[in-house]
C-alpha cells in the first residue's frame, strides 16, 4: 500500500466509525462514550481529509483547488478501482 492508498484507507476507517456512531447516537443521544468517540473521530477525519486533498486530489468540492484550474473534475472516480483493499 503506497502513501496515498494508506491515507485513503485511514479516511475510510475513520469515516465508517463516524457513520456507525452517528446511527447509534440517533437512538442513544445521551450516551457519553459514544459522544466522546464521535467528537474524537470527527476531528481526525477533518485533518486526514485536508491532508489527502492537499497531497493528492480533493475528496469534496469544498476542498477543490481554485488556483490554476478547477481541480475537482480531474480527480479519479471511485468506481475506477483506485480505492484500496482493507485487510480484514
Amino acid at each position, binding site marked *: 500500500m503506497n502513501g496515498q492508498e494508506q491515507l485513503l484507507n485511514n479516511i*475510510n476507517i475513520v*469515516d465508517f466509525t463516524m*457513520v456507525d456512531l452517528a*446511527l447509534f447516537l*440517533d437512538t442513544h443521544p445521551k450516551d457519553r462514550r459514544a459522544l466522546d468517540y464521535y467528537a474524537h473521530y470527527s476531528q481526525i477525519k477533518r485533518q486526514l481529509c485536508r491532508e489527502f486533498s492537499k497531497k493528492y486530489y480533493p*475528496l469534496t468540492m469544498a476542498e477543490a483547488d481554485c488556483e490554476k484550474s478547477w481541480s475537482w473534475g480531474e480527480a479519479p472516480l471511485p*468506481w475506477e478501482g483506485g*480505492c484500496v483493499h*482493507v485487510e480484514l
Partner: protein
Amino acid sequence: MWSYEKRLQFPVNIKEPNAKLAQIIISQYGGPDGEMGASMRYLSQRYAMPYRDVAGLLTDIGTEELAHLEMVATIIHQLTRNLSMEEIEKSGFDKYYVDHTLGIWPQAAGGVPFNACEFQSKGDIITDLSEDMAAEQKARSTYDNILRMIKDPDVCEPIKFLREREIVHYQRFGEALRLTADRLNEKNFYAFNPGFDRCEDCN
C-alpha cells in the same frame, strides 16, 4: 441538501470480470430489496415523521443507502469491464447489453425494471418503521443468497460489508420503533397513526 465525497464507503477493486455474477448482483441496485428502493424509502418517509430524532435516523440511514447504491453500481461496473462479445453472449448478458451496453441501469436480476412500488411511504409512522425493519431483513436475505453464489474474494468482501450494514440498520430501526411506540398515548392500544389522527383519546 447533500454533499459528495469522491470515495466509496468500502473499497471495491474487482480484477476478474464476471458478467453472470453482475446479472445477479444488479438486483441489489434496482431490484425489489435493492439499495435504490432502500434509499428512496427512508428519505421519502421522513416527511410524515413527527419526531425529529427518528426523522434524523431516516435521513442518516437513507444517506448511507446512497453510498451503498454507489458500491453496488461499482461492483456491477467492474464485473462487466472489458468484456468481449463472446463473453457477453456466452454469459447471457446479451439481453441486458442490447438495451444498455455496459451502462448501469436499475433492474432486478430477472430483468424487471426498478419500480417505486417496491417500497412504501404510508404516512403512518408505525406502519413505515415496521416496513423498514422488514426491508433490512429482506436485503440481508438477498445478500446471503448472493454470497452463496460467489467465490471471488474481491466481490465477497464488499458484499459481506453491505450485508453487515443491513443487520445494524435493522437494530437501529427496532430502537426507532420502540422510541416511537413509547410516545403513543397509553390509551392508543392499536397504535393508530399519531402523525394524522388527532383524536384526544387515542393519541
